[in-house]
């Protein structure tokens, strides 16, 4: 029963993702994307990674998506933008990406046979993750903080608003 639930969640995740990426309205797309991320979080939980599931909800579906919301609000594209977006999603534009994606999927299906290997069925607790993080991975934690610093400084500079001048190019 619960196994069936897993496949249902997976289907939901894929469906929500496809819908999200084909919306004309950015805010709607975002809602679907959050749905997809929540579904993935449920899958994490089912696979025995409760810590990751929590983080997926908190950071991915929470913090990162909120960033998107902020930007969409700042841009304030409105209905005109949505009309335009619908125009860009013309059927002809679908052909090449659709074809290529299908080919990629077929290639992947060819590779993934059934080897009988399953997930372990055991949960890896947050405690174990924490020990691992501050044990062998301690340098990774430090480097991740450096990465966030680079992102912080970079985003701060890039997004800063300057008063436009006539000489701009």
């Amino acid at each position: 029963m619960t196994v069936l639930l897993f496949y249902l969640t997976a289907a939901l995740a894929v469906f929500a993702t496809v819908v999200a990426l084909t919306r004309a309205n950015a805010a709607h797309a975002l809602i679907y994307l959050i749905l997809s991320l929540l579904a993935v979080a449920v899958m994490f939980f089912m696979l025995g990674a409760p810590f990751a599931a929590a983080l997926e909800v908190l950071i991915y579906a929470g913090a990162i998506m909120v960033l998107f919301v902020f930007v969409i609000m700042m841009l304030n594209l409105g209905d005109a933008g949505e009309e335009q977006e619908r125009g860009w999603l013309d059927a002809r534009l679908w052909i090449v990406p659709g074809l290529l994606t299908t080919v990629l999927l077929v290639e992947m299906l060819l590779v993934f046979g059934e080897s009988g290997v399953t997930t372990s069925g055991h949960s890896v607790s947050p405690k174990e993750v924490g020990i691992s993080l501050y044990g062998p991975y301690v340098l990774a934690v430090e480097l991740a903080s450096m990465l966030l610093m680079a992102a912080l400084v970079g985003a701060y500079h890039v997004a800063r608003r300057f008063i436009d001048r006539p000489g701009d190019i």
Partner: protein
Amino acid sequence: MDGLLIPLEHVLLVAGILFACGLGGLMLRRNLLFMLMSLEVMLNSAALAFIAAGARWQEADGQVMFLLVLTVAAAEVAVGLGLVLQIQRRYRTLDMDAVTRLQE
């Protein structure tokens, strides 16, 4: 609650499909915002694959990698959204088909 016994290939396939969706979005969408969303989907699919592998070996490493992928996604998106604002300001559009001052 303990995890489920699910064929590893199935989980990886779900991750693969999500990955392909992300790539498809990257090719399909002209709007930079959607491109960034596609990117998030792709990174998320890699994270799912890591979690699945971690569940298969019953190790914490998979979740640690997930955490790092999360950090990467956050960093990418922070700078990326900054660039969205910049592009909108300079080009008055987010249509990446029109943002082609640099070309042959």
